[in-house]
């Protein structure tokens, strides 16, 4: 079982709530995924066209809300969003993300560290979204973040884990859970993350935009299970040379 900041999670798959075709599809897909923590975002209400309130679609007993600071371009904006999220009853868990460049949506390491330090002091449980930088991961743990969320590839790209060697170092050095986030586009990608020892994965786009999001959510849940079980079982060592699986003795009768 996974524990983050003293809270136990039975599922190592965390879900996102964006990009679903309807609130009902979102609800059904999240249920099928078995996840227990979901990310949500904060936005200004469009007064001419108020959207459905997604809070009412999600059972707060079943899901822990992880409000994100998406849209923040610097530490100040992220801190402001964090306080708004807490005021709105979103709890004190926070996915800290600071993405100044809308083209790449890559996280700003300096502003993320700055905001993390301030928010931890302010009693937030901070899960920072970062590039897969092992030194930054250490610095964030030093200031007291509850987990580290390195990216596999840029948000919404479905490219899988392009940062594998760095994520392996982050996991090796981690004193808090490592949640691989962003870019995980297929069940094989999350299986890979779990096989190398990630504690959990966060998936939004790949499930939300699938032809059948409910079925895809199930596939991701199975892949997380498979990858985790493989990690716990201990994978065989990689070798550059072939090693026969069948005995190499007892072949005299052929020659």
């Amino acid at each position, binding site marked *: 079982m996974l524990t983050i900041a003293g809270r136990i999670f039975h599922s190592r798959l965390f879900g*996102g*709530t*964006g*990009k*679903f075709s309807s609130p009902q599809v*979102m609800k059904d897909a999240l249920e099928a995924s078995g996840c227990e923590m979901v*990310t*949500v*975002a*904060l*936005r*200004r*209400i469009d*007064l001419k066209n*108020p*959207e459905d*309130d*997604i*809070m*009412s679609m999600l059972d707060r007993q079943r899901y822990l*809300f992880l*409000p*994100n600071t*998406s849209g923040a371009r610097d530490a100040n904006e992220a801190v402001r969003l964090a*306080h*708004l*999220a807490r*005021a*709105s*009853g*979103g709890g004190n868990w926070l996915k800290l993300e600071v993405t100044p460049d809308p083209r790449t949506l890559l996280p700003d390491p300096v502003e993320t560290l700055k905001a993390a330090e301030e928010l931890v002091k302010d009693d937030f449980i901070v899960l920072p979204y970062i590039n897969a930088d092992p030194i930054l991961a250490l610095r964030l743990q030093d200031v007291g973040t509850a987990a580290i969320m390195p990216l596999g590839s840029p*948000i*919404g790209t479905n490219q899988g884990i392009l940062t594998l060697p760095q994520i392996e170092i982050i996991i090796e050095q981690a004193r808090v859970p490592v949640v691989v986030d*962003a870019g995980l586009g297929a069940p094989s990608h999350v299986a890979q993350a779990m096989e190398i020892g990630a504690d959990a994965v*966060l998936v*939004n*786009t790949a499930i939300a935009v699938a032809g059948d999001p409910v079925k895809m959510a199930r596939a991701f849940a199975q892949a997380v299970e498979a990858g985790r079980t493989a990690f716990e079982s201990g994978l065989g060592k990689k070798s550059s040379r072939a090693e026969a699986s069948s005995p190499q003795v007892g072949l005299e009768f052929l020659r």
Partner: protein
Amino acid sequence: MKIICNGEEQEVRTECTVSELIVSLGLKPETVVVECDAVILKLDEYPTRQLHEGSRLELIHFVGGG
């Protein structure tokens, strides 16, 4: 009197409270986070907090996100 709500000018009655404004916009107070003149309000302040000429409000809510 005039206030600025989510970037747009709105006409409200004098002594209008935050709760009244939210309800008049067809929203449920418990689903709305309010920042009034850069200060975040608590839900239990909505019924008593009165708006003033030129008050700047931000009405925020949770939406789907990753």
